[in-house]
Each structure stands twice: as C-alpha cells, then as structure tokens.
C-alpha cells in the first residue's frame, strides 16, 4: 500500500463519516488504509492544548509529564488501541516462559484519571502542521503543539513476495500483541525435530539487542521442550550489532547444540507456500517456523504526513526541542526519530523513548511559555535475557554536546556472567517500574 500525499488528502476529504473497521490491530503495512473524519472532535477551549499521538513508551510519558509540569495545558492523547502490549518482555511470552500477556499489557484509565489527560481512541490519519490539527478516524483535533511517538512500521516492499498475508504465516512479532501470540503458538505447535528460522534486518531497527535476546529464549525453549529441534538466526548485518561478547558467549555456552548464527544474510524473498526465505535468490532457508522481522522505518503516519527525511525512513528532529524541521509545532520522539548524533546514536528502545519524552515535554512547555529550552540528558538501559533466569544489559548516559546527542558513558555487563542472576531480578523490576510510569 503505497499512497501518495495528494491522493491521500483527497480520500480524507471525501470520506468523512465512513465507519472505520480494523484499525486497532495493525500487523504490518498490509491493512486497508484508515479513513479520517473532517468534523472537529473536541473543539478547543481557552486552554492551550498539546495533542500527543501514540500511547506507547514515548507518548504516555510525554502526556503525563506535560501535565505534571504544567496543569494549565490541556493534553489529549490519541491512541488507536484501548490497550498497549509492551514489546519489552514479549520474548518471554513468545518462548513460553510466562503465559500471562496481562503482565505486559497496560490500559490508559488510571493515567488519564491521575493526570487529567483526555484520551481519544482513534487512528491518526494525517498530521496537518499548516492547519495545526491532527485528523483522526473519529474527527479532527486542533492543537497548539503536537508530540508524536508512533513507533515503527515495516519496509515490506523490500522483500519480494511479501504481501498482506505474509505476517500471518511468518510472524514478525516486532509489535507485541496478536503477533506475539501467533509466533508463540507456532513454536508450541511445531513437532520436535523441526527447524526455526529467524531473520533480522540491517540497522537501524527497533531494539538492537531484541532479536538476539529472542534467539536465546527460543533456543532455551527448544532445548527444554523440543531437544531435537534447532534454531537458525539469519542476521542481515555482517556481524552481531549489540552486546556481542555477551550474546556470543551465551550462544556458545548454553545453546551450541541447537543454535546457529549466520551473519550477512539479508532476506530478500519469501516463499510462504514453500515455507522458506531466500537470500538474493541464491540461498534458501527452509523453516517449520519462520520469524521474519522485516526492515523498518518510522510508522506509516509519518510517511503520510511528510515527516520522514530524505531517506524516506526516519524523522529528522532538533536535538533539543525534538521539533521536526519539516513541520513547525510538531515534535517527534521514540523509535520514529533520527536524532542528530555524534557517535553511536541512542538506540530505538523503550528506555530511550521514555527519556526523550520527558525532555520533549519540558521543552515544548518552555517554548509555549517563552522560557529557554534545556539541553538533553537521558539514559538508555536495555536488559536482555539470555536464559529463563539470567540477563545482561547495556547502560548508557546521553547528553548534548555541540548540538548533537552523544554518550559520555556506555558499557555492557561483565563478560564473566557474574551478575546475570542479579540483573535478571533487576530487569523484572525495570519492566514493572517503567510500565507503572506509563500507566499511572
């Protein structure tokens, strides 16, 4: 579904009042396009208003901190789903180490009530910076400033044979929820002796260590429940791109008999009927279960609204205000962004989105209130499980240096695995705290 800007606006203009179906469960880029309504949804009163688009790791925090810092601002949070399922820790669920999806699912009622945030459950179909409004499937919303944290969508057009149904056969499970359940069910249904193939894209993509964590947990599941089965991880990158010494040690220590890592294998074709993926048509990999994580870009809404950069993938932003150079008054955070960076950039992680959201909130207020903006100082920590009771982490501080985001301190866990059990316990509390931050 490629969709140019002009035909989109035409569609929006002509289709107001159409009922909208199936917008809540996006599985990829294969869905029917959502249709915006032109009627004004919630006319703006005298209070200044910030509209936040996307109630995930970044958006919930931006909405909450705006209200914590300045109660005079009306905050409207627009999210397409009534519940948010966290990608962090979804690998545990996929690999059968927890059966409870509720532990990684949050709603918005408490957050909204505690902070006086107005929730709108609708899909945003256009961010119209010139008119200072967002168009949604339920109507339009005017704003003084807009913060967008919409996450990612997939560049499936780069994979030959990939269509609207492919993600049902070869789940990506790179947006948590129905996709996670699908992959989990496939793994459980697979007879012992089967082969699981995972394919991961070139950087940058959401959560650099995520595919490696998943490989450990799936290998752990197979080792325990299907000992004659094996897992192959096809990495489009030439080599492991995150926490390399730790993952390679985990693979060789725990999973050497049932796991194989192969770098430099970019999947370019799928054959759903033949249950295989192909590298440039030269080499095929057959799998009983195939977890195909396609290459990524900023979420569809950013492409539609002209907020992606020259690469057509990620959204450029100012390193202090997170404002888009392409749309005055529109601030972008989280996975969708390409922040000006000096050295390795902030990874596309939940923790990064959380840190960015707070500075974005503060600086949006500073701009609205005519105060000086403040320079960024934030954190990224990603815990990755390497088995059902051990985890490792990367810990990074980032701040602003010469107009760019730079890390003065980045380090991974010790390679002797002396802290893996303690980090596993701390990792669980990290999830609890960050989800509590987002939902209360």
């Amino acid at each position, binding site marked *: 579904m490629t969709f140019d800007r002009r035909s989109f606006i035409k569609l929006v203009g002509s289709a107001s009042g159409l009922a909208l179906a199936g917008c809540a469960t996006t599985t990829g880029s294969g869905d029917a396009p959502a249709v915006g309504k032109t009627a004004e949804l919630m006319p703006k009163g005298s209070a200044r208003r910030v509209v936040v688009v996307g109630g995930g790791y970044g958006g919930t925090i931006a909405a909450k*901190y705006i209200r914590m810092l300045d109660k005079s601002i009306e905050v409207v949070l627009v999210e397409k789903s009534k519940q948010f399922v966290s990608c962090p820790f979804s690998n545990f669920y996929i690999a059968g180490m927890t059966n409870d999806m509720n532990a990684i699912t949050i709603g918005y009622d408490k957050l909204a009530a505690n902070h006086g945030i107005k929730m709108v459950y609708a899909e945003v179909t256009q961010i119209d910076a010139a008119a200072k409004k967002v168009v949604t499937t339920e109507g339009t919303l005017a704003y003084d400033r807009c913060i967008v944290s919409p996450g990612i969508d997939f560049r499936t057009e780069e994979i030959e044979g990939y269509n609207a149904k492919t993600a049902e056969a070869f789940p990506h499970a790179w947006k948590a929820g129905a996709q996670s359940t699908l992959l989990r069910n496939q793994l459980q249904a697979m007879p012992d002796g089967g082969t699981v193939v995972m394919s991961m894209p070139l950087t940058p993509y959401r959560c650099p260590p995520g595919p490696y964590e998943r490989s450990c947990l799936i290998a752990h599941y197979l080792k325990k429940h299907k000992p004659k089965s094996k897992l192959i991880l096809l990495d489009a990158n030439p080599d492991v791109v995150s926490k390399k010494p730790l993952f390679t040690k985990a693979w060789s220590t725990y999973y050497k008999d049932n796991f194989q890592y192969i770098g430099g294998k970019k999947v370019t074709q799928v054959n759903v009927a033949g249950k295989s993926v192909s590298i440039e048509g030269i080499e095929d990999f057959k799998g009983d279960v195939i977890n195909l994580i396609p290459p990524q870009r900023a979420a569809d809404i950013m492409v539609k609204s002209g907020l992606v950069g020259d690469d057509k993938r990620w959204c450029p932003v*100012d*390193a*202090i*205000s997170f*404002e888009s*150079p392409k749309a*005055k008054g529109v601030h972008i955070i989280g996975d969708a962004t390409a922040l000006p960076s000096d050295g390795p950039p902030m990874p596309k992680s939940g*923790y990064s989105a*959380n*840190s960015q959201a*707070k*500075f974005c909130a*503060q*600086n949006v207020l500073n*701009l609205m209130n005519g*105060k*000086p*903006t*403040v*320079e*960024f*100082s*934030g*954190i990224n*920590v990603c815990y990755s499980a390497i088995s059902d009771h051990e985890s490792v*982490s990367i*810990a*990074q*501080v*980032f*701040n*602003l*240096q*010469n*107009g760019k985001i730079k*890390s*003065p*301190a980045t*380090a991974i*866990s010790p390679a002797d695995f002396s*802290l893996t059990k*303690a*980090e596993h*316990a*701390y990792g*669980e*509390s*990290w*999830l*609890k*705290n*960050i989800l*509590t*931050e987002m939902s*209360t």
Partner: protein
Amino acid sequence: MKMKKSLVSWALVAGCTFSGAVMAAPPTPEMLSYACAGCHGTNGGSAGMTMPSLASQSKASIVDAMKKFKSGDRPSTVMGRLAKGYSDAEFAAMGEFFSKQKFHPTTQMVDAAKAKRGEEIEDANCSRCHIDQGKDGKDDTPVMASQWLEYLKMQAALYDSGARKMPKDMADKWNKLSKEDREALLHFYASVK
C-alpha cells in the same frame, strides 16, 4: 565552562533552527533526575520489588552512593556504569531532587514473626543511625522504611560476602547479630510505613 558549552551548542543549533528556540540552558535537577525514573519509578518511588526507592533519601546518601558506584567502592550491577556519565555537581543536583520527594510507602509481603523480632532489636542496634524506624535518612544513611525487602536482602548478601563495605560502627552491630536476626531486621524495615 557550562556557559561556554551552552553557547557553542546554541550557535550550532541556531544555524538550523526553525522553532525560534532561545538559548538552551543546562539540564535542570528535575530533568536529570527524571531519567532515573524508568528504573526507580516516577519521582523515585519504586513499584518493582528488587529496585530501591530513592524518594525522600537524604541528599548526602544519594551523593555518597553515586560516588561509591562511580569509583567502584560500592559493588553494583548497573549503577557503576551509569554513574560514570555524571559529574559530582550532577550527583548533588539529583540528590537534592530526590531528597525533596515524598516518602514512598510500600505494601509488601513480610513474615510477621520476623518483622516483630526485628522491631524488638532495632532500637538497640540500628536506630542510632537509621533513625525513626528507618524513615528518616540522616546524613549519609539511606532511608530503610518501606524499602523493598528483595532489594534489602540482595544488599545484605553483599555486606555479608564483604563485597560491599559498611560503616565501621554499623559493622560492629551487624557482625554481632545472628543471620536470623539480620533478616528479621530487614523484614521489620520493609514493613514500616
């Protein structure tokens, strides 16, 4: 120094700015501290059973902990790596912020008999420093009341193994107590609201 850095970054940003942003100031104490909340909870009130709350800890205790994490004097999983990204002035700013946050009471499962035993012996052994049943963090003494039991147990294990050094006067008391009594004290402190 800080001024010069801000000016340079402003000049660079101004070249491509479109928001009409005025000069950016260094991050405020709140903004520095908000970054810690992803792990320690909003305003330092932890909901995770192994992660310590920072809310209402004394400034000196936070600064002291951060300096020890940074130098490696105090063992850690992640704090040593994070502390390396901050200056002493930033430690002080964050310590000040967390010391001003409301005490964070928790409701946790503790063993009632152990908590009772702990209550009986805390006054004679620990209250000189962990005052008001651990609610008040004096000087460099951390707040113990309502701290998560799992966290306290992990730290006690580090004290017992010698990996984390304790103040001499605390060691005098701690080392004389049985393993059971040490644990009882932790159950007691975790139960104080």
